[in-house]
């Protein structure tokens, strides 16, 4: 397993948000996390990146134990994180935003090549390479955020609601990109409110409810589960 989480408890202060969550992601696999608002989905991703202040349990990634690691050392190991809400550096150009994603690997010789690959994946970014990221459309900003996470050449990409608040056409575009990223061999842990889309892209999934992992299974199993259908697919 590339990522193996066991009995993770995590939060921001005294009261934990996540309770004994376990989850694994194999190399190249796409796993999706479903759950209502405040279920703790973002907290789960932030715990993997080492950003939540309190973490207990075990998070093993590619032979490293992350639980006591400082968040600044985690991207270097090969984890890219696209946070919820289109976070770009607004007054930096698109290219500089992408460079910042490789900040932890700034001595790497293959950066130019990787930048080229990302521009190929998102041709729109190539057209706007020198434009300030803050002046891009919402969808373009999301592409910048994804591209930035890819610049560190991650083995695992954490995507937090990448299609949230985007126009339907752009949602399709972003999801096509996710499929392409997954095909290129990067493992993806995808958090989505749009469960139908998430289960299309993912091979397995998990449902979080108030910080507890209540369901796990293949995407097909989850899509067939009556509770999931009612709560997340609206059927």
């Amino acid at each position: 397993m590339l990522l193996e989480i066991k009995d993770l408890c995590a939060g921001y202060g005294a009261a934990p948000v996540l309770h004994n969550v376990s989850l694994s992601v194999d190399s190249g696999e796409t796993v999706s996390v479903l759950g209502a608002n405040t279920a703790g989905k973002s907290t789960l991703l932030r715990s993997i990146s080492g950003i939540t202040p309190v973490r207990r349990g075990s998070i093993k990634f590619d032979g490293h134990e992350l639980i006591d690691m400082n968040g600044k050392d985690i991207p270097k190991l090969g984890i890219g994180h696209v946070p919820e809400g289109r976070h770009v550096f607004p007054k930096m150009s698109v290219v500089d935003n992408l460079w910042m994603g490789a900040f932890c690997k700034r001595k790497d010789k293959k950066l130019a090549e990787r930048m080229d690959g990302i521009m190929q994946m998102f041709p729109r970014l190539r057209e706007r390479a020198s434009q300030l990221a803050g002046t891009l459309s919402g969808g373009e900003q999301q592409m910048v955020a994804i591209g930035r996470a890819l610049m560190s050449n991650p083995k695992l990409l954490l995507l937090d609601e990448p299609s949230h608040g985007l126009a339907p056409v752009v949602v399709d575009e972003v999801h096509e990109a996710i499929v392409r990223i997954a095909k290129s061999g990067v493992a993806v842990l995808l958090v989505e409110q749009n469960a139908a889309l998430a289960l299309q892209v993912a091979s397995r999934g998990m449902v979080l409810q108030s910080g507890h992992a209540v369901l796990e299974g293949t995407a097909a199993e989850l899509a067939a589960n009556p509770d999931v259908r009612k709560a997340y697919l609206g059927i």
Partner: protein
Amino acid sequence: MKFKGVTLNARTAVYLCLAVAFLIPLGMDPDGYLLRIVSMVVLFAAMAQAWNIVGGLANQLSLGHAAFFGLGAYTSTLLFIRQGISPWAGMLAGGVVAAVAMLLLSIPLFRLRGHYFALATLAFAEVLKIIAIHFADLTEGPTGITIPYGEPSFANFQFESNTSYYVVIVALFAVVSLIFWKLSTGAMGFRLRAIRENEQAAEVSGIDTYRIKLGTSMVSAFTMGMCGTVYAQFTYFFDPESIFSMTGISVRVALICIIGGMGRLWGPLIGACILIPLDEIAVNTMSDVAGLGPFVTSVILIAAIIYEPRGLISAWERLRRRAQKKHAAQSGQAAGAV
């Protein structure tokens, strides 16, 4: 510009003018009013530069930098009076005390964001003021401290001529500015810029936002503490009201930066060159009508902020760009004529 075979570009020309400007006060009357004002301008520029390290680079707006200023002044002065320790050593001790105070203040603060930092630093300075007034055994209380004038000597940080103080103040400004410049360039400059622009994006890019904000705020407090020592040695007297003053110190240094250009190397000097003389003129010419001086300066400052929200340094940059464009157009025409 060509001068005896040496090509001067605009940048070196500006730096040369600046160096000359710093030298002019050496020729001023050592006991004169003018040298005193110039010294105050440079001292406030140094203080504003200290504020600029956390306010401009880490985007944590402090409204209580008087706290660290006062801690520096009290630490070195009390060590000197009570223990006979040289104020030069006291200056470093004051810096350390200020930095540790910032550390203790920041541990809970950086989890909270934004305005909490401004409010908490403001409250912290007010609390220190009250402590300094009430713990008279330690601090001499509300009457303040007068530094005994002994034999002028370098070790005692006491000089015969105000010109020497001016030199010390310029050196202080240079040191704080050098620290600012070091932090604002290179890899650290990129980290701070990322934090300034979007903290969450910085966090997931592998930047330890918490520790970097903590570090810059401590460096800022340290340098502000050093300024406090220099101020105390320069004025020979201070009291809790003036040294921990919100309007006189905390808000003033923040305003100097905002007017001059936040996060910019030359912002504090530009701001101080405008604000300090303006306050001085207001006090000297408009004190007959209560409140007129502050009113007039406030109006001027508001106008400056409306006219140039990113600091007067951007007005200067616009002028320079325009000149460059004109220059380029002219040389283009010249080339066309040939």
